[in-house]
C-alpha cells in the first residue's frame, strides 16, 4: 500500500516534469515560432497548407474560426460515416467485417469526430483494419487537434487586446497534429511495440494450445492507434476490452505510459496558457486546482477498490492484500495491473476526457464507479480532454471570479479584462447545456421501455449504467458501465445526439466568449482586482467546480452509486 501511494505521487511528479516543457513548446508552436522540429516539419506544414488551399496567416474573427471548425468536423463526419457503411466492400478487411447499419454508423462517426470514442460495437468483429487506420486513427488525431485549436483560440481571446481576431483555424489545427501529436505518437507507438503491443496488417493468428485446443487471436495495426488513442484523450479501443487487452496494454510500463499520455497535453496546456498570458502563475493556479481535484478522486477510487467487495468475502474469496497478491476487488481487473494501476487508470481516464479503460468500470465498487462518473460529470476539467479540459476549466475560472466578485463586492475581471453579462450568460449556457443534456436524456431513457430494456442489472446499478452512458456521451468521454446494451437504435441515436450536444454546445459559446473577450481593453490590476494567481483562487476554483457538480448531480447519484454502496454492505443483491 505504501508503494502504491508512492507510485501515485510519483505519477503526479511525472505529469509535471513532462507537462511543463511540453507546455512551453506548445506555446512556441502556436505562436508560429521556431522550434527544434521546425527544420524538418516546416516544409511539410507548407505542403499541407498548399494542398488544402488555405492561407495560414489570415487572422479570423470568432465566427469564421467557428465556421471553419464546424464545417471541417462535418466533412470528417461525412467521410467517416461513408467509410463505416462501406467497409464491407473496401480493401484491408482480413476479418470480413460488414458495413455498419445507419444508426450504428451515425453513432460511431459522431463518436470519433467529437473525441468521445464511445463504441457500441466490439472492435474485433465490428470494423475492418481499413476503418481502424483510415477512419479511427485519423480521427483520433483530428478530434484531438480540433480540441487544441479551441483552447488556443480561447487563450488568445483572453490575452489579446482590442481586436476581433483570435487566430487562424487551419494553422492551429495543422500545428497541433504536425508539431505535437504526430511526433509524440511515432515515438510512443514504437515503445508500445517494444513491450508487445501488436502492429501488423494481418487479421488473426491461430495457435494450438498444449492441451490441444485451437485458439484464434485477433491482431492488427494496434500500436499506431494506441499511441494517439491515449495522447489525444480519445479512448476508443482496437479491441472490445480496450486497454485491458494484453495486445493493447501488455505491461505495467505501457500502462504507465498510457496514463501519462492522457495527462501530458492537458497538463501541458495549463503552462501554455501561463506563458501566453505572460504570467506563468496564472497557468500554475489552473494546474494546481486540477491536481487537487484529481488526487481527491484518485484517493476515493483507490480506497474503495482496495477495500474490495464484502459480498465476495462472504462467499469465501480472500481480498486482503499480501506479499503474494494485490487483493481488493479484482472482478474486471488484470493481474499485471492489480488495484493500484487499475484505480490510477480509472481516475485518469475519467478526469481526462479519454474513456480508455484497463478494466471493467461497471464492476468497480459503487462509490469508486460513482467517483469515476463524477469526474466526467464535473465537466472533465480535471486536466480533461486535449484542449477541452483547459477551455472547460477557464470557463469555471470566469465563473469563479464572477462569484467572488459578487461575494466581496469587487468588479469581476480575469487577466485584466472585465467580465460582462454577455460572457457570463454564454458561460452559464455552456455549463447548463452539458448538465441538462445528461439529466434530460437519462430521464428519457429510464422512463421509456426501450431505454430500460438495455440494462444488465436491476436496482440502483441499473440507473447508474444508464446515467453513466449519457454522462460519458455528453462529456465526450467514451468509457462505459458496459453492462448496458448500447447497440440498440434507441441508445445509438440518443447517445449520438448527446455527444453532439456535449461537444458543440460547449465549443460554440467558448469561441463566442473568446471573440468577445478579445475586443476588451486590458486594465492594469487595481486595489479592486480579485487576484487570480493566488492560493486563495485555487481554493475558490476547486470549490466552484465541486459545488456546481454536486448541486447538479447529487440527487441522481444518491439513487445510483450511493444507494448501491449501502445495499452492497447490507448484502442486498439484484
Amino acid at each position, binding site marked *: 500500500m505504501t508503494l502504491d501511494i508512492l507510485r501515485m505521487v510519483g505519477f503526479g511528479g511525472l505529469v509535471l516534469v513532462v507537462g511543463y516543457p511540453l507546455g512551453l513548446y506548445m506555446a512556441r508552436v502556436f505562436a508560429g515560432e521556431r522550434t527544434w522540429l521546425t527544420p524538418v516539419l516546416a516544409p511539410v506544414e507548407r505542403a499541407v497548407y498548399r494542398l488544402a488551399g488555405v492561407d495560414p496567416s489570415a487572422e479570423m474573427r470568432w465566427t469564421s474560426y467557428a465556421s471553419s471548425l464546424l464545417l471541417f468536423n462535418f466533412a470528417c463526419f461525412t467521410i467517416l460515416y461513408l467509410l463505416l457503411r462501406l467497409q464491407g466492400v473496401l480493401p484491408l478487411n482480413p476479418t470480413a467485417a460488414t458495413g455498419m447499419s445507419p444508426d450504428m454508423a451515425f453513432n460511431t462517426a459522431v463518436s470519433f469526430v467529437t473525441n468521445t470514442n464511445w463504441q457500441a460495437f466490439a472492435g474485433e468483429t465490428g470494423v475492418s483494419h481499413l476503418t481502424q487506420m483510415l477512419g479511427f486513427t485519423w480521427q483520433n488525431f483530428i478530434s484531438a487537434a480540433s480540441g487544441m485549436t479551441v483552447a488556443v483560440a480561447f487563450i488568445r481571446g483572453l490575452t489579446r487586446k482590442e481586436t476581433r481576431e483570435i487566430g487562424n483555424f487551419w494553422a492551429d489545427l495543422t500545428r497541433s497534429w504536425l508539431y505535437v501529436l504526430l511526433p509524440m505518437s511515432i515515438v510512443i507507438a514504437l515503445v508500445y511495440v517494444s513491450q508487445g503491443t501488436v502492429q*501488423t496488417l494481418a487479421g488473426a493468428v491461430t495457435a494450438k494450445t498444449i492441451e490441444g485446443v485451437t485458439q484464434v487471436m485477433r491482431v492488427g495495426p494496434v500500436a499506431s492507434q494506441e499511441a494517439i488513442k491515449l495522447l489525444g484523450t480519445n479512448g476508443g479501443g482496437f479491441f472490445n476490452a480496450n486497454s485491458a487487452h*494484453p495486445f493493447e496494454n501488455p505491461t505495467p*510500463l505501457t500502462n504507465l505510459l498510457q496514463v501519462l499520455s492522457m495527462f501530458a497535453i492537458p497538463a501541458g496546456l495549463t503552462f501554455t496558457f501561463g506563458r501566453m498570458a505572460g504570467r506563468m502563475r496564472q497557468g500554475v493556479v489552473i494546474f494546481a486546482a486540477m491536481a487537487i481535484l484529481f488526487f481527491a478522486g484518485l484517493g476515493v477510487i483507490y480506497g474503495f477498490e482496495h477495500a474490495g467487495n464484502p459480498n465476495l468475502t462472504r462467499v469465501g474469496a480472500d481480498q486482503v492484500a*499480501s506479499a503474494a497478491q494485490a487483493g481488493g476487488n479484482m*472482478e474486471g481487473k488484470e493481474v499485471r495491473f492489480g488495484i493500484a494501476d487499475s484505480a490510477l487508470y480509472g481516475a485518469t481516464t475519467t478526469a481526462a476526457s479519454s474513456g480508455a479503460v484497463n478494466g471493467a468500470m461497471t464492476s468497480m465498487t459503487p462509490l469508486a464507479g460513482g467517483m469515476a462518473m463524477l469526474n466526467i460529470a464535473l465537466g472533465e476539467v480535471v486536466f480533461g480532454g486535449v484542449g477541452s479540459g483547459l477551455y472547460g476549466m477557464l470557463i469555471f475560472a470566469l465563473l469563479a471570479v464572477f462569484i467572488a466578485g459578487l461575494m466581496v463586492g469587487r468588479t469581476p475581471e480575469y487577466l485584466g479584462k472585465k467580465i460582462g453579462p454577455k460572457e457570463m450568460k454564454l458561460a452559464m449556457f455552456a455549463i447548463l447545456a452539458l448538465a441538462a443534456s445528461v439529466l434530460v436524456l437519462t430521464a428519457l431513457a429510464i422512463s421509456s421501455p426501450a431505454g430500460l430494456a438495455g440494462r444488465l442489472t436491476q436496482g440502483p446499478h441499473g440507473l447508474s449504467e444508464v446515467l453513466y452512458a449519457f454522462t460519458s456521451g455528453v462529456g465526450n468521454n467514451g468509457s462505459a458501465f458496459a453492462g448496458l446494451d448500447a447497440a440498440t437504435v434507441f441508445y445509438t441515436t440518443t447517445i449520438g445526439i448527446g455527444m453532439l450536444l456535449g461537444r458543440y454546445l460547449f465549443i460554440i459559446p467558448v469561441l463566442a466568449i473568446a471573440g468577445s473577450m478579445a475586443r476588451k481593453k486590458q486594465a492594469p490590476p487595481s486595489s479592486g482586482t480579485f487576484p487570480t494567481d493566488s492560493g486563495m483562487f485555487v481554493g475558490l476554483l476547486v470549490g466552484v467546480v465541486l459545488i456546481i457538480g454536486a448541486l447538479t448531480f447529487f440527487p441522481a447519484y444518491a439513487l445510483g452509486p450511493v444507494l*448501491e454502496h449501502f445495499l452492497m454492505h447490507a448484502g442486498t443483491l439484484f
Partner: protein
Amino acid sequence: MQKYTIPAVRMALVTLVVLGLLYPLAITAVAQVTMPAKANGSLVTSGGAIVGSELIGQRFAGPTYFHGRPSAAGADGYDGQASAASNLAPTSKALVGRVETAVGDAVRDNPGLTAGSVPVDMVTASGSGLDPDITPANAYAQVARVASARGMTPEAVRRIVEENLTGRQSGFLGESRVNVLRLNMALDAAK
C-alpha cells in the same frame, strides 16, 4: 459558405492520407523490420508449432496444469476474437453466485485450500477475459493439486512456480505475477 466548405473538405482529405494511411503504414513497416516477434503477437512455439501467445491467456482444464482465471471472453472463455469482461455489478446476484460456485470448485479441486482463503483472482473474471497471468497466491494454491496429478513432490512444483515468478517491472511497476502458459511449459519441460 463555400469559402469554408472547400478548404474543409481538402484539409480533411490531406489529413486522411497522412494520418490515416502514411502514419500507421510507416509504423507497421518499422515495427515489422525492427521488432517482428513483438509486433506479431509475442508468439510462443513448441516443436515449431505455435502454442499460443505469451501475452494472451488460454484455457487449461486438466489437473496436471495450472489454471488461469475465470474468463468472460466468448462462450467458453479465452476466446481471442471476443475479449470481454463480465461487466457484472458488485451487487449482482449473477456475480456473487458465480464467485460462490468458483470458490466451491477451487476448494474441492485444490487440497489444502479452504473457503475464506481462496485468492480473489482465482474466482474473478479479468478485464480482458484474456489475462495471461495469475497472482503468486493463486499459483501457490494450485501447487498441491498439480503435484499430486503429476506424481511430483509439492516442493518440486513450488520451486518451478518460484522460478517462473515475474516481479514488478523495473522493481516497482505493476504487480508480481506468474505467466500461466510459461509456467505450464516449464512444468512439461521438467518432467
